[in-house]
C-alpha cells in the first residue's frame, strides 16, 4: 500500500474558511511518525454456524496512515466495512490479519488479546447513536468521571469534579453544573453527543474514532457537533477517523477521504480532489446518488444498486457485477491500488483500485455535476 510513504504535507489549497482546509493539519510535519498506521487489515466473520460455517469477508487488506491532527473520512454504503475498521482499531474486535502500528508499536503483537489501559487512554471512540452510547442509568457526571478515575486523570474528588465541569464546558454544555446532574434521557441528541465527545476527551486521547457521530442527530444541530470536533482537532491536535455515509460531511471535516466498497478501500485522496474528480466508478455512482436540490430527479444513475457478495465473493473486483465500465479483467483479477496524479502535488496521495487506471494517470475531471 503506497499510502505509507511518508509523503505529503497538506497545503492550504483553496482559499477558504473550511475547517479541514484551514490547515491545522499543517502541523503534521514531514518526518513526524504517524500516530496510527494500519497495514493489510483484514477481518473475516464466521457466519452460518452449524457444520459448515462460512466466512464473511467484511474487510480486505485495508491500509492507511493517520497523523496528528488529521481527519480521515471513511465513506461507503451500508455494510462496506467502515464500522469494522473502527472496531478493529478500538480493539472491540480482533482482526483476522494485518498490523496496527500505534506510535510505531505493533499493537497486535504487543497486546494480542485485549488492549492495554494505556492504549485505551490514547484512542477513544464516539458512537453513532448518542442515546445508545450513554448508559441510561448513569448521570452525565458518572460518564465523565469513570474514564478520569480509571485512567488516573484525577486523584481527589475536588479535582474530579473540576475536570468534569471543565469537560462539559469544553464541549459547550453550559451551565456545566446543571448538565453534570442530568441523565441521558433528559437531554437532546446533540447534547448527548456532546457528552459522548466529552467522555472521549476525558482521557486526553491522541486519536478519536468517530462512527457516524452525526447521522442520528437532527439536521439543524449536526453542524454544531461537527464543528466541535473540528475545533478539538485544531486545539488539541487530535487525529480523527471519521466514518460517515454522508459524503458532503466527509468532505467538510475530512482532510482525506477514503471510499470503501465491500470491505475494500476503492479510492482515496484529498477530500476535495476526490469529490471533484472521482475516479472509481463506485465513487462516481455514490456522488451521483447524493440528493441535490438543483438536480434533476430523472438524471440516470451510472449503475444499478445491489449488494456485493461478501460470503464467498467471486474473484476480481467486487464492484465488477455492477460496474458500467466493466472489462473482462475486472472479473478475473482484483485490482491493485494505483497512484493517480494529483491536481495539487502537495495534497495527500491519491489512489484508486480500478483496472481502468494506470499509475500516475490523471483522474477524470469535474464530470460529476455540471457545476463545481
Amino acid at each position, binding site marked *: 500500500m503506497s499510502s505509507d510513504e511518508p509523503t505529503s504535507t497538506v497545503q492550504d489549497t483553496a482559499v477558504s474558511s473550511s475547517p479541514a482546509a484551514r490547515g491545522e493539519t499543517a502541523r503534521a510535519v514531514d518526518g513526524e511518525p504517524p500516530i496510527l498506521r494500519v497495514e493489510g487489515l483484514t477481518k473475516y466473520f464466521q457466519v452460518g454456524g452449524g457444520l459448515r460455517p462460512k466466512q464473511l469477508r467484511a474487510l480486505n487488506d485495508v491500509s492507511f496512515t493517520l497523523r496528528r491532527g488529521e481527519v480521515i473520512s471513511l465513506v461507503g454504503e451500508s455494510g462496506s466495512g467502515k464500522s469494522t475498521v473502527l472496531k478493529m482499531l*478500538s480493539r472491540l474486535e480482533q482482526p483476522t490479519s494485518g498490523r496496527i502500528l500505534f506510535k510505531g508499536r505493533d499493537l497486535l503483537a504487543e497486546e494480542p488479546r485485549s488492549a492495554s489501559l494505556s492504549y485505551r487512554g490514547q484512542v477513544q471512540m464516539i*458512537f453513532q447513536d448518542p442515546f445508545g452510547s450513554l*448508559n441510561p442509568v448513569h448521570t452525565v457526571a458518572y460518564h465523565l468521571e469513570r474514564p478520569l478515575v480509571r485512567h488516573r486523570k484525577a486523584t481527589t474528588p475536588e479535582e474530579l469534579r473540576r475536570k468534569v465541569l471543565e469537560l462539559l464546558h469544553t464541549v459547550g454544555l453550559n451551565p456545566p453544573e446543571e448538565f453534570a446532574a442530568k441523565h441521558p434521557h433528559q437531554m437532546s441528541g446533540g447534547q448527548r453527543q456532546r457528552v459522548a465527545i466529552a467522555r472521549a476527551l476525558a482521557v486526553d486521547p491522541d486519536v478519536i474514532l468517530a462512527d457516524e457521530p452525526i447521522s442520528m442527530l437532527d439536521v439543524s444541530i449536526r453542524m454544531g457537533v461537527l464543528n466541535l470536533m473540528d475545533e478539538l482537532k485544531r486545539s488539541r491536535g487530535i487525529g480523527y477517523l471519521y466514518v460517515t455515509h454522508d459524503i458532503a460531511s466527509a468532505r467538510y471535516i475530512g482532510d482525506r477521504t477514503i471510499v470503501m466498497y465491500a470491505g475494500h478501500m476503492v479510492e482515496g485522496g484529498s477530500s476535495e480532489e476526490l469529490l471533484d474528480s472521482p475516479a472509481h466508478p463506485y465513487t462516481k455512482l455514490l456522488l451521483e446518488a447524493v440528493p441535490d436540490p438543483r438536480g434533476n430527479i430523472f438524471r440516470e444513475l451510472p449503475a444499478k444498486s445491489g449488494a456485493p457478495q461478501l460470503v464467498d465473493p467471486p474473484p476480481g473486483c467486487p464492484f465488477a457485477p455492477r460496474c458500467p465500465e466493466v472489462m473482462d479483467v475486472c472479473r478475473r483479477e482484483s485490482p491493485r491500488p494505483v497512484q493517480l496524479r494529483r491536481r495539487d502535488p502537495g495534497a495527500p496521495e491519491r489512489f484508486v483500485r480500478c483496472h481502468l487506471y494506470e499509475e500516475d494517470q490523471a483522474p477524470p475531471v469535474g464530470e460529476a455535476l455540471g457545476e463545481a
Partner: protein
Amino acid sequence: MSFFRQLLSNRKANIGLTLLGVFVLIATIGPYLVRDASEFLTTPLSPPDSEFWLGSTSQGQDVFAQTIVGARTSLLIGFLVGIVVVAIGATVGIAAGFFGGWVDDVLSLLTNVFLIIPGLPLAVVLAAYLEAGPVSIAFVLILTGWAWNARVIRAQTLSLRRKDFVAAAIVAGESRLRIMFFEILPNMTSLIVSGFIGATVYAIGAQVGLEFLALGDVSKVTWGTNLYWAANNQALLTESWWTIVPTGVCVALVGFALVMINFAIDEITNPRLRSEGGWKAVVRAAGVTPGFSTPVLRRGSLADSNALADSSAPALSKEAS
C-alpha cells in the same frame, strides 16, 4: 430510581404492593398477636365463631393463628428463593451473555438443561431425599427455579451487550466485572425485579405443593402444611371448609399481588401496554365512541389553556384571500 417511582405511581402496582404489604406485615408481627398455632386448643373442627375466627382444625388448632403464622415461613421462603434465584440467574445470565463464546455455550447449555428438566418431579425427588424442612425446600426450589431467570437475563444481556454504551465502557478501559455489574446490570432493574417476583410466585406455589405432598416438615406451621393437614383430615368430606379455604385464599392473594406487580412492571417497561385510559376518557367525554380511526374532537376540547392561548391570535382564515 425512576423505575421504582413509576412503579409507585402505577395503579396495578399499588394494588399489588398494598396487598403484599399487608401480608408482609401479617407475617412479621402477626405471629406475636395470635394464639400458639400448633397448640391443640379446642374442640376439633369447630366452625368459625367469635373466639376462633376461622374455626379449628381437626386437631383443635386455631385456624386463624395457623393462617397468620403460616404466612411467615411461606413468604420467607418465597422471598428467599426469589432473591437467590435472581442472584444466580443474574450472575449466570450476565456472564453467559457478556462473555459469549464457550462460556456462553456451557452456561446456556446448563441453563437450558435445567429449564427443560421437569422441575416439579425433580423437586419431588430432591425434596424427598433432603432433610425435611423449609431450608431443603428452598434449596430444591432454587435448584429447579434459577434457569428461567438466567435465560431471560442472558437474552437481555445479549441485547444490552450490543449497545454502544458497553462498547464505550470497554473503550474507556473499564474492567469486565465492572461493565457487567455497573453498566449492564443496572439496566435490567425491571427485569430483575420481575424475575424476582416471578420466582417468588413460583416458590410460594411450589413450596405449598411440595408441603402438600408431605415433602416438607409437616410439624412446622406453614401454608403448605396447613393445606396438607386439611387434606389429610379430609377437610372437604368433613365439610370443614374453614380449614382449607383461608390458606388457599391467602396463597392466591399473595400470588395475585405479586402478579399484579409484574403486570405493572410490564406496563412500565413496555409503554405500549400502558392503558389509554386518559385518551379514552377525553374521547368519551367529547361524546365520540373510540374506534380504529382517529377521533375528531372539535374546538378545544383538550386543555382549554391551549385553546385560549391560540384564540388570542387572529383566526387563520385571515390569510386566505
